[in-house]
Structure formats: structure tokens, C-alpha cells
């Protein structure tokens, strides 16, 4: 497993030469993920500000600060699309980052050396593409998975932690989460 990782993921010992070293790339990836987390916390801030569920529910009535509240006058919180707007606006940039790594990987076989001449003599025509695309594909799948996981968590929070009467008629528009 370790040999496979060294082989297909960039670094000093990999076949994809000319790339940033593994450590630099890992740092860039960790920073990107941290920024993604911080950026997506827009939802948490908005959700917190809307005071979604501070009310206590007891025997068909809501109470807030000891006072019984008529559910009809409870204010609706902003719809989920407003809450989630732009939460994952960094995802396209992270995908572009992955594509840029793939381009750099391919380029490294043409500059500074022409190691493409060696790759073209290998029996497996896929070896070059595996070496160039393994990390970028894994990266794109990983960040997409992180966004989907966070989206599911936020979606769950919104619909399950909020007093039902306060939720407006709404369904999630995924494209709004990517908007800038």
C-alpha cells in the first residue's frame, strides 16, 4: 500500500517529476480544507443568528423565557437556500486546483526532461495517466465528499433542530450553495 501511494502520489520519489514536493502539496491541501471548513461555517453563523430552536416545547405549547408563545406568531427563519447560499463557493476553486495539479503532472514529463519518452515505451498505456491523475482525482472526490458531508450535516441541522413551525416552505437548491 505504501509503495502504491509513493508511486502514484506526488513527491520526491514518485514518477511524476517536476511536481511540488509531497510536503508542500499536503500543506496546500490541508490549508484548502481548513479554508473550506471556515467558509462553510457561514451556514452555522446564519443558523445561530436565526435562533432556530431556543424555544421550549411542552404539551402543545412553546415557551420562551418562561412565557407561553402562540405558535402562530413564531417568526419563520430564513429558508434553507438563504442559509446555504455560497456555503460551498470554494468548491469550484478546489476542483480547479485539482485540475491544475493534473496539468502540472503531465507537464512534468515534458519539462525539464523528456521522461515522456520512457513512459511511451512502457507496456501499459495507462501508467502515465495513472501517475498524473491519481492524486487530482482522489483530491476532487475527497473535497466533493467533504462538501456533500457538510451539506448533509447542515441540512439535517436545519430540518431537525428547528421548530417545524418556523421552517418556511422550502427545498434546497444545490446551485445556490455554490454561488459567489
Amino acid at each position, binding site marked *: 500500500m505504501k509503495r502504491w501511494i509513493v508511486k502514484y502520489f506526488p513527491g520526491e*520519489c514518485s*514518477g511524476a*517529476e517536476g511536481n511540488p514536493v509531497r510536503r508542500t502539496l499536503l500543506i496546500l491541501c490541508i490549508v484548502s480544507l481548513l479554508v473550506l471548513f471556515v467558509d462553510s461555517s457561514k451556514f452555522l453563523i446564519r443558523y445561530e443568528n436565526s435562533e432556530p430552536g431556543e424555544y421550549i416545547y411542552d404539551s402543545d405549547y412553546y415557551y420562551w423565557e418562561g412565557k407561553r408563545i402562540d405558535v402562530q406568531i413564531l417568526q419563520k427563519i430564513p429558508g434553507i437556500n438563504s442559509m446555504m447560499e455560497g456555503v460551498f463557493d470554494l468548491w469550484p476553486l478546489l476542483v480547479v486546483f485539482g485540475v491544475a495539479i493534473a496539468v502540472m503532472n503531465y507537464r512534468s514529463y515534458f519539462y525539464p526532461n523528456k*521522461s515522456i519518452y*520512457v513512459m*511511451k*515505451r*512502457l*507496456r501499459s498505456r495507462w501508467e502515465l495517466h495513472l501517475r498524473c491523475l491519481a492524486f487530482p482525482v482522489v483530491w476532487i472526490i475527497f473535497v466533493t465528499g467533504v462538501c456533500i458531508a457538510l451539506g448533509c450535516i447542515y441540512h439535517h441541522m436545519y430540518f431537525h433542530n428547528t421548530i417545524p413551525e418556523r421552517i418556511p416552505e422550502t427545498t434546497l437548491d444545490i446551485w445556490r450553495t455554490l454561488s459567489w
Partner: protein
Amino acid sequence: MVELKAVNKRYSGHVDALKDVNLSFGQGEIIGLFGENGAGKTTLMKCILGLLGYQGEILLDGEAITRKNIDRLSFGTCELSFFPKMTVKEHAEFYEAHFPKFRKTRFFGLAEFFELPLNRAVKTFSAGQKSQVEVILALSQGADYIFLDEPFVGHDIFNREDFYKLLLGILEPTETVFLSTHLIEEVEGLVSRAVMIHKGTIIGDVTTEELEEQGKTLVDYVKELYGYKADRVSKSLSQFGGTDE
């Protein structure tokens, strides 16, 4: 046997790099490919190796050269095709993993001969050492046909002379070396056949045996083919008022 039949190569801009090249060479030959800069030497090698498209036919033992048989050909080029960040040892591991006939003993033997550090990234080597790595990789791949394009760039004279002797000693009878170089005098004792290319066309193809029978050296033969005029220098200098010493 490698056969080239009516091979043409035209680059964009209507530059004919190869014109109707017909050539064949079999196992066990050491062939020198000579020609002026831009004659088509590198283009010819790259077409054989499938690195450039071409018109015509190039066969290896009667079959087209594909991924199935391409590992029977190796290539050492002055453009350098090794992996700069890998060490010499890591190159051996890579070649062993991807070329079933990789000659590990020969590889490490040649690395020792050239006194190459095994555990340093090749990108940190001198220019001469880098071309040495390039050559030993081509020689150790386990190929039947070894193409070397200007392999001695950066080698000092001592390394070159020792290398020629070593090459004659290590090559097996079935191995063929196809070598392009400008160092005609130096490789005269090494090659068994000389192919001359000029402006994309093969203008000469002779064995060293034939040259010996004719009482000519390889340099004489090349000069003859190129129509080299021995008095061109003195004529030019006389125009400038100098002398040819």
C-alpha cells in the same frame, strides 16, 4: 530486424525532415548514423521509436512497432529522458518494475564504472553525469535495439574512450546499437556500419569492412560523400588576407 520502408516525415511549415528513407538493420550491428545538424538523425530515431508520426512503414521483425514490442527498443537522448528527482537506485527499481528484461547487473556495473552516486537525485548531477545516467539506462533496459542520440555530450575524453571499450565488451551478439554522433573519428573503431544522412535522405550506407577494402577511413568517406573541399578554408582565409596554417 528493423526495416524502414519509404519513410517520410514532414513537419508543419512544409519542412521535409525525412524523404523516402529505406533502411534495414539486424541484430548484432553497431551502426553509426552521421549527418550535419538538421540532417534528420534525431527525427529518424524518433520515428522508429514511435515518438513522431510519419508516412511509410517501420517494422520490427516484420511487425509494426506497438506497445507490445516497444520495450525491445531503448532510447538514450541528449534531450535526457530520465526522471530528474529520482535517484540512480530508484531508476533501477522503476526499470525493473516496467521492463521485464532489465539488466540490473549491467546497470549497477556501469554506474560503478562512471562512479555515479546511487542515492542522490539525478537532477543534482553534473551535465556529464546526467548523460552517463541516460546512456546506462538505455543500455540496461534489456532492449534488442539500443538507440543513442548524441550520447557523449558532456563526457570528457577519458570517459568516452573507456566507454567505447566497455561498450564493445558488454554488448551481447544479439544487441544492436544505433548511434548518432558528430565524433566520427572517435567512433570509427567502434561501429561496424556507417549510415550517412543529408537533408532527410540516406546518402551513404557502408560497412567498415568495405571501407577497409577500399583503403579509406570513415572520415575520408564522409568527406567524399559531403563533397567536402579541403581547400575551402585556405580560399576563405585568402579573401580575408590570412593564411591557413
